[in-house]
């Protein structure tokens, strides 16, 4: 049994402007100890997917209208708030993009760390303090015992993110969800945070969901990748297969639009762009959501009438498109070139 199985997840926001179908068809499995990267542009539903798994979506206006989130076989969408609280922090932990705002500036680092330990593991004050020092050492904060009595403002952005990570792993979770954990940081600091996450994932045998907009971060840290577009999971594959042979026209276009740091002649050439914009999720296209921007969809195509389903194109490589690259033999693949 997979550690986490998300089946046909649909999370909608009921707003005055209408029903926003923020997550509208997400399916994946995650095995123990593996890292899944969820990648996509702003508004594609990647963060709402994470919050839905954690039971942290704001209700109202949001609601999981369909689907299951099976964690060790137990459907988290069926749990009440008390049961969810027990799962959160203890079995599934989450870290967010901005370490500046996720720490309370008026509390000492030590207080914020020991709180979790005492709440979830029922530790005594002394035991929690001792464990907090160990945790800070584990995330490589030097002189940990003394740093415990510091307030967050004494730490740099990277160091604060390490404190957040220390808090997240405090209860030895089986799954860590990291939502853009390194986005607000400089690249050099980002690299070290990613190294740290990798090290901890191995040491604690955790599974990880890494949410990011950065294909480079995915290439570095993920075992498997899920690409999201307009609320839907559109492609899922092993990391090497995804980068070697992207299938979905959107994935190809996204990779093509990226400037590469090691690419010669990029100055003289133009970057590939994707025409148009993602659809409004109050009223998305009836059929394929990428259809209006897809270079392969022609007018009387089936994919403009019927919504493509996620299908397994080859072992472990899933795609939601009527025109995956490997079925376009003979068609010149302009996009992504």
């Amino acid at each position, binding site marked *: 049994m997979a550690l986490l199985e998300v089946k046909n997840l649909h999370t909608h926001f009921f707003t005055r402007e209408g029903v926003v179908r923020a997550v509208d068809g997400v399916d994946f499995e995650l095995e123990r100890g593996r890292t899944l990267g969820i990648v996509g*542009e702003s508004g594609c539903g990647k963060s709402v997917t994470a919050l839905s798994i954690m039971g942290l979506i704001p209700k109202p206006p949001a609601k999981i209208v369909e689907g299951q989130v099976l964690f060790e076989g137990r459907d988290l969408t069926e749990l009440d708030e008390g049961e969810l609280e027990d799962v959160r922090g203890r079995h599934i932990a989450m870290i967010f993009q901005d370490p500046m705002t996720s720490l309370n500036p008026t509390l000492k680092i030590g207080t914020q760390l020991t709180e979790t330990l005492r709440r979830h593991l029922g530790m005594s004050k002394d035991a929690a303090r001792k464990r907090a020092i160990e945790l800070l050492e584990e995330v490589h904060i030097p002189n940990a015992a003394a740093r415990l009595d510091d307030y967050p403002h004494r730490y740099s952005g990277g160091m604060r993110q390490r404190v957040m990570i220390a808090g997240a792993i405090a209860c030895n979770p089986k799954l860590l969800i990291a939502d853009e954990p390194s986005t607000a940081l400089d*690249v*050099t600091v980002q690299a070290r945070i990613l*190294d740290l996450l990798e090290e901890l994932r191995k040491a604690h045998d955790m599974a990880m969901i890494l949410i990011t907009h950065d294909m*480079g971060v995915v*290439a570095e840290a993920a075992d498997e990748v899920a690409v999201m577009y307009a609320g839907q999971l559109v492609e899922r594959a092993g990391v090497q297969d995804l980068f070697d042979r992207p299938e979905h026209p959107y994935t190809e276009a996204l990779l093509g639009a990226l*400037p590469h740091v*090691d690419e010669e002649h990029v*100055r003289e050439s133009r970057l590939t*762009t994707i025409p148009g914009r993602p659809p409004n999720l109050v009223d998305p296209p009836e059929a394929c959501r990428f259809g209006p921007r897809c270079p392969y969809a022609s007018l009387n195509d089936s994919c403009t009438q019927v919504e493509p389903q996620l299908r397994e194109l080859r072992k472990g490589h899933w795609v939601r498109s009527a025109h995956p690259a490997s079925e376009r033999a003979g068609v010149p693949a302009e996009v992504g070139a």
Partner: protein
Amino acid sequence: MSTNGALLEVTDLTKHFPIKQGLLFDRTVGHVKAVDGVSFQIAEGETLGLVGESGSGKSTTGYCVLQLLKPTSGSVRFMGRELTELGREDLRRMRREMQIVFQDPYASLDPRMTVGDIVSEPLVVHGVGSRRARRETVRGLLEVVGFNPEYTNRYPHEFSGGQRQRIGIARALALNPKLIVCDEPVSALDVSIQAQILNLLKDLQRDFGLTYLFIAHDLAVVRAISDRIAVMNQGRLVEVGPAAEVYSSPQDEYTRALLAAVPVPDPRKMKERKEERRRVAHVLAEAAEEAALADE
């Protein structure tokens, strides 16, 4: 023009900010050397990419070039004139030739002004053209940047980040400047939109002979648009050179560490890079911070 034909020539530029202390009476207890002896030149029609991490002084350098911040010392020669010595009125006139595009298209456009007013503002300030002529100019500018000119009566909040950045670029172009300082112009945008804006900036450069000082932290983005690269760390330029050289054989240790830290969308290459970045990590600020913390 200056003797060597450079449009912009910056020599020994410094900008120090005082560190103040004390509750009742401010005392200056020291200085932050945000920019500490920076020299570079940009030829007409060229793009110089200025890269560095947050706090490296790259934006401060840009502001000092435009005299939006007064440099502590050093020289900024632009179109043959020394900007640091110009009086208010002369400087105002020179501003027509040098404009800026900001990072955050959500913060840099006045939400109470229409798109038309935003783009025509520089024309009004500098008294260019009649009302009617200005309206025509604005339409033309919006068309050039790929923004529907029918929308001049709308407000910035009605548009996405990419569209807003187009408005910001149209405003910068309004006075037909020679130099545009681009301060992280695409870092708030999604990848596909970022590509559109970079292409637009390239097209405008070709069509209008623009010169760019392109400030950004993203080394891949900078490479896509720059002829030469200047790498900044802690207020100083550690390396300046043609883009291809800086990227393929960086001379400075810091440049090497910075380049190694960039994640690339290729899982195989990523494995090598991880090794490389462990080797060079010791020169980075966080390593220094760790050492300092350990000593306390």
